[in-house]
């Protein structure tokens, strides 16, 4: 934080500097095992990007719709997509559910296993990948046939084919197998290394998987307990309010499942990629424990507009939602400090002048830092959405898709796009064919998403609803003059994002189709960063915060209890007033 150079380094005399070597992943001697581990991670990541490719190609149609331009009646498109709502369902499911889950399953299986130098059962890992893919394919059939055009929230009593619900449940359920394998691997490491501090990347990964296992229970309960038996005709009907409440048990926490894997890169790898150091490992561990505890019991803030849920519980969940902003604010501090550290190491000067010294031309770096900038704005908007007084102004308006395109659509997606540019070379030994094209792609993604968000937030404030084919309404209520500017911004953003996606995927596909060039263990190692305040290796000698955050299993149990406490009374009341209604197919 010093802005003027001083003659001697600032260091207290009584604390001699401890030099920690930059961490390297423990070596794995068995080459066949390492190759298989890398292969399974690669399969997850490539499947993720294939889903993103299809999903993103549909995106501009949605943006143009909110620009007042309806392309869905074009004969060529009509042959592919039955309606705007089918296109939107595919866009949402592929981008928000499939891309994220597959990428994270590969990323957060590989990282902790390498971080611990563990040997996992590769048969089980491959089985999980195949199961997840089978679930995806099962759900894809009714989606593509317009037999489950339910959007990605699939609220009953709008009804889809049983195959959709079963496939989605299998897909989400297999992510829990990854979670189980990672947690078990960590537990075995703990037993083999008593008294040791869990290394940071493994710690963050395990905490994320534990959080997701608590969070995903709501969706699993909704699927297994209600939607699957209902769609198979075993129940007389479905309770849409109970179903929606279970959905949002998972549905809000899922955003932390999307963003924490990005945080892992921001904390552990970006400092190195920028030439600096991670700020504080103990603080980072605290952040992840807070997310583990507090991510899930906040979901009812998505239901302020729902009847028959008591205002007391809505208010409690609102307070917990505000609290979850705290670990994100801590992240903003730490990551920015590590960037400043990097920039000053590169000769950066001045209060803000150091910013220019960061490697902005490197797409791996710039993608992730632009993602962070986007997340500052998205996070601020999220606090608005979580506020019961503001919520009625923005609920289900175009503001909401504006919001989540700069959170999951940029903070997460753009981070993963940047990460893939070193992670895929690391897994495959292939090279990024053109960092320049990749760089243009990530910058245009950022600009496109900013414009999209501006246009959509603006339209939302003027009362334009979300998820509506506003370019094809029979009444011309969306032609008002004050909508012209935001509509133009939104339409333009669709074109920019289309160009960005074409550039990015051209780089990605050229890389994947190229030949293996390098021994990636040497040329592209996992970019661990040095830490200014490391956690240390021995628990006995570690700081109180490190010791307090180490027992993750206890926090896992506590997280589960918190969810029971915060959802139990609400669900009990819904169950005791169960109101089953029949299903409908209106698409």
């Amino acid at each position, binding site marked *: 934080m010093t802005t003027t150079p001083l003659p001697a380094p600032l260091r207290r005399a009584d604390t001699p500097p401890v030099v920690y070597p930059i961490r390297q992943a423990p070596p794995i001697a068995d080459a066949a095992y390492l190759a298989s581990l890398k292969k399974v991670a690669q399969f997850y990541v490539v499947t993720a990007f294939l889903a993103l490719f299809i999903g993103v190609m549909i995106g501009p149609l949605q943006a143009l719709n909110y620009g007042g331009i309806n392309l869905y009646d074009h004969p060529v498109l009509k042959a592919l997509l039955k309606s705007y709502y089918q296109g939107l369902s595919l866009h949402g499911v592929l981008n928000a559910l499939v891309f994220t889950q597959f990428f994270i399953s590969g990323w957060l299986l590989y990282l902790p296993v390498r971080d611990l130098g563990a040997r996992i059962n590769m048969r089980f890992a491959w089985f999980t990948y195949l199961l997840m893919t089978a679930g995806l394919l099962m759900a894809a059939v009714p989606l593509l046939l317009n037999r489950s055009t339910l959007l990605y929230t699939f609220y009953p009593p709008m009804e889809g084919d049983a195959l959709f619900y079963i496939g989605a449940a299998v897909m989400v359920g297999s992510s829990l197998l990854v979670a189980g394998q990672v947690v078990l691997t960590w537990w075995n490491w703990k037993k083999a290394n008593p008294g040791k501090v869990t290394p940071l990347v493994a710690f963050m990964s395990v905490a994320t998987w534990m959080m997701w296992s608590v969070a995903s229970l709501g969706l699993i309960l909704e699927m297994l307990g209600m939607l699957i038996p209902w769609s198979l005709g075993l129940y007389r009907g479905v309770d849409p309010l109970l179903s929606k409440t279970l959905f949002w048990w998972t549905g809000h926490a899922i955003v932390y499942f999307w963003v924490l894997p990005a945080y892992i890169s921001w904390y552990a790898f970006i400092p190195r990629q920028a030439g600096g150091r991670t700020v504080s490992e103990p603080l980072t561990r605290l952040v992840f424990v807070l997310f583990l505890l507090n991510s899930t019991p906040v979901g009812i803030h998505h*239901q302020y507009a729902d009847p028959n849920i008591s205002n007391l519980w809505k208010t409690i969940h609102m307070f917990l939602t505000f609290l979850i902003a705290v670990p994100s604010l801590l992240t903003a501090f730490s990551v920015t400090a590590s960037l400043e550290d990097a920039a000053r190491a590169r000769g950066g000067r001045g209060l803000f002048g150091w910013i220019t010294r960061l490697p902005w031309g490197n797409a791996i770096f710039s993608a992730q830092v632009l993602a962070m900038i986007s997340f500052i704005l998205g996070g601020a908007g999220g606090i608005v959405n979580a506020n019961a007084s503001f919520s009625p102004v923005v609920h289900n308006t175009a503001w909401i898709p504006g919001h989540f395109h700069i959170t999951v659509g940029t903070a997460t997606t753009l981070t993963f796009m940047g990460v893939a540019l070193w992670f895929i070379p690391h897994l495959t030994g292939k090279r990024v064919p053109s960092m320049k094209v990749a760089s243009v792609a990530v910058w245009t993604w950022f600009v496109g998403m900013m414009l999209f968000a501006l246009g959509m937030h603006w339209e939302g404030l003027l009362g334009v609803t979300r998820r509506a084919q506003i370019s094809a309404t029979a009444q011309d209520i969306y032609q008002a003059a004050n909508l012209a500017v935001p509509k133009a911004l939104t339409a333009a953003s669709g074109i920019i994002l289309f160009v960005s996606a074409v550039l990015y995927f051209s780089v990605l596909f050229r890389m994947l189709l190229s030949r293996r060039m390098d021994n990636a263990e040497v040329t592209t190692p996992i970019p661990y960063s040095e830490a200014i305040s490391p956690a240390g290796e021995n628990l006995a000698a570690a700081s109180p915060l490190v010791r307090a955050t180490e027992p993750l299993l206890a926090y896992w149990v506590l997280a589960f209890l918190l969810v029971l406490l915060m959802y139990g009374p609400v669900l009990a009341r819904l169950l005791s007033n169960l109101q089953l209604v029949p299903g409908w197919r209106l698409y």
Partner: protein
Amino acid sequence: MTNSPRPPGNPIPRLEHHTLERYESVWLGIAAVLAVLLFASTLASFISGTYPALRGEGGHHISGVTNGRLDPRNIAATPFAQPGLRENPDGSLEAFVVAKAFAFEPAVLRVPAGRPVTFHITSVDVMHGYEVQGTNINVSVIPGQVASFTTTFRQPGTHTTLCNEYCGIGHHNMINRVVVEAPQAP
């Protein structure tokens, strides 16, 4: 990707543990205070009544409605069978609105300006949303559930009512009106 060396002969003091730890603690304090302040100010806005809060249990006194629930296949037994505004013997106003694919009933709801109106809304098929443009009325309409809230329209005029929850192929055409009429001279 690697640490670039510092320029020789020009040592730049780098961030160090103790300074950072202080800043961190201050920042953590600010973040926590921010969260609590946000909560307190929202509670204050509940009390001042800046938005029409939903009842925890909708339409509890309405015939045919139990615990805020009704059977969407049998609204004939409830006041929703005749959607629209009704004036109770005690002079209070209640508006019954039914959402179905793809329209609200009544298509034009007429309410007087300046008098509190209690809305009761339900759906007879799938989920809908009841958004009255130019107001902060924004409610989920769920089959089997009654949403109730009280609001006062201050100015005469016409508002568009939109469905803002996906309800099928005609969702974007689910557009009706609320007409706020000037109070009649006694």
